[in-house]
Every structure is written in C-alpha cells, then in structure tokens.
C-alpha cells in the first residue's frame, strides 16, 4: 500500500469581510478517515472545496506528499469530491458515467445489486436517494489517492448508510478519506481522526463529551 499524505494549513477564507475559516489545519492520509463536524455555515463545505481546489481561499497551502499544489483537482489521479448537491448530469447513462469515472459497473453492482437493472438507463431514471447513493459509491470506488465526501449519508436509507460505512472502512486502506456530515454518530463511527470546526478554527475531538463541551450537541 502506498502511503499518501494530504495536508492543508493556513487556510484563510472570508466572505463579505467575515472570516469563515481562519486557522485550519487538515491532515489526511492513506489508511485513515478524517472527519469534520460543525454547525451550519461554519465553513465545512468551503473547506472541502478549498482542499479539492474548486474554491480559492484568500490564502491556503495544500500539499500532497509534502509538495505544494495550487489546485489538487488538476493533479491526475489525486482527488475526487462528492459535493452536497447532486452533481452528475441526469441525461447521462449509468454505463457512460462509470466509463468517465473509470469505475467498472460490476464493482458498483457487487456493492449495491439494486443498480444492476439501471446499467442502460439514464441517471435521471433513478430516484433521488438512489442518485445520491450512486454518486457516493462512484466517488468512493474511484481509483484516486484521496476522496472528499460532503454529507454522503443525506437522503440515503439506513440500510444503505450502514453498507456505505462498511465500504468507507474498506476503501480507506487504498486511499485517504475526508468526510463531513451532520449525522455525527455515523461520522464518529467511521472517523479515525475527528475535528470540529468552530469560529473558523479546527478543534480535535476525542470523545462524545468534547462535542458537548464545544456546544455542538446537547447531551
């Protein structure tokens, strides 16, 4: 297994003179799932986009294996990102999407046999939950060094969430995974390193009590 390290630090991002992220350090590595929690609007998704390279912060330093990268998405085979909203054009056929993402369709069917009947169908023929699941799976199975999952468990039924968690635990042996979601129990289950973003800064979370102390949950 090749060990890859992704680091992002000195991330500074502001919108309308309001600092969203000001003192953030992220380290992800092969074999580990790095989880992020935080209130709505605290900058989790912005941080994910800054790391991915689709959003430019006022300042940031993103390094892949100690090498500075101005935009990670331009580095072939480096990273894939599951955004919060559905992102694959609905008129594309499932088979065509698998070809573009270089993920064999059979690998998806092996994980979720429910997709078998959709091979020749357009993505738009699937239900909202199935689309979300398909997008999460295709990103998760991509042959890249790192993946970012922004709210992968939203709109997915509990049985599939458990299966997705199993996949995350298995896939982390081949790639580093950064994940964020409001379903914090699931995030705590799958994360090896967990951080909370508050007031633009990252805080290491070790126990459930840390989340209470930071005011993220009540009890």
């Amino acid at each position: 297994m090749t060990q890859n390290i992704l680091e992002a630090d000195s991330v500074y991002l502001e919108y309308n003179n309001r600092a969203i992220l000001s003192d953030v350090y992220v380290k992800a590595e092969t074999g580990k799932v790095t989880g992020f929690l935080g209130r709505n609007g605290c900058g989790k998704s912005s941080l994910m986009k800054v790391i991915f390279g689709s959003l430019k912060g006022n300042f940031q330093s993103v390094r892949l294996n100690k090498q500075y990268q101005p935009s990670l998405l331009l580095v072939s085979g480096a990273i894939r990102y599951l955004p919060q909203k559905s992102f694959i054009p609905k008129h594309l056929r499932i088979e065509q999407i698998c070809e573009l993402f270089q993920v064999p369709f059979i690998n998806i069917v092996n994980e979720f046999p429910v997709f078998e009947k959709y091979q020749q169908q357009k993505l738009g023929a699937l239900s909202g939950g199935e689309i979300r699941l398909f997008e999460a799976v295709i990103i998760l199975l991509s042959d890249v060094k790192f993946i970012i999952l922004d709210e992968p468990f939203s709109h997915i039924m509990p049985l599939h969430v458990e299966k997705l968690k199993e996949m995350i635990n298995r896939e982390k042996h081949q790639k580093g995974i950064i994940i964020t979601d409001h379903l914090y129990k699931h995030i705590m289950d799958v994360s090896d390193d967990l951080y909370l973003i508050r007031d633009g800064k990252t805080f290491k979370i070790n126990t459930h009590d840390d989340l209470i102390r930071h005011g993220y949950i009540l009890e």
Partner: protein
Amino acid sequence: MVRIKTQALWIYYKSICPFTLLVSFGLFYTYHQFHDGKSLFIFSKLLTLILTAIMLKFYHRVDEFPFYENLGIKQNRLIVLMLGFDFAIFIIILNLLDLL
C-alpha cells in the same frame, strides 16, 4: 485521460449549444441576406458570447460543475474552452458563407 476530458467537454457543449447555435444561425441568416459588414457580425457574436459566459458561470447547471472538476476540468477553463470552440465554428461558417 485526454479522451475522458474530451468526452466531458462534448457533454458540456451539447448542453449549451442550443443557445449558442441559435444565436449563430440568426446572425448567419442576416449576414447571408445582406453580405456586408462581416466585422459587425463578429462583434455581435462576441457580445452574445460575453452574455453567454455570464449565464454559464452563474445560472446554467452550476450544480454540475463538480462533475467536470472531478474529471480534471476547472469551471472557468470549461466555459472559456466551450465559448472558444463555439466562436471558432462561427468564424469558419461565416467565411464559408462568402463562398455561397
């Protein structure tokens, strides 16, 4: 990877070409009728491309940009490439019309 990027660019172009080609055909028809002032038509097309760029950047299927980014194409580059391609087609056909 080049093949995949080309496929992705074609997918995006197919989604925008109904707008850009409609404008082009309108301009071609007018040019064909009067056969005069080619630079005026090039200028008109450029203006529509600027408006199209604004539409593509902020309104047209903006949720789908991560799809192209996941395939290694940044959104600004995607838009510029598409509009460049569309403009090139326009110039070629405009010149061909002189032969008719």
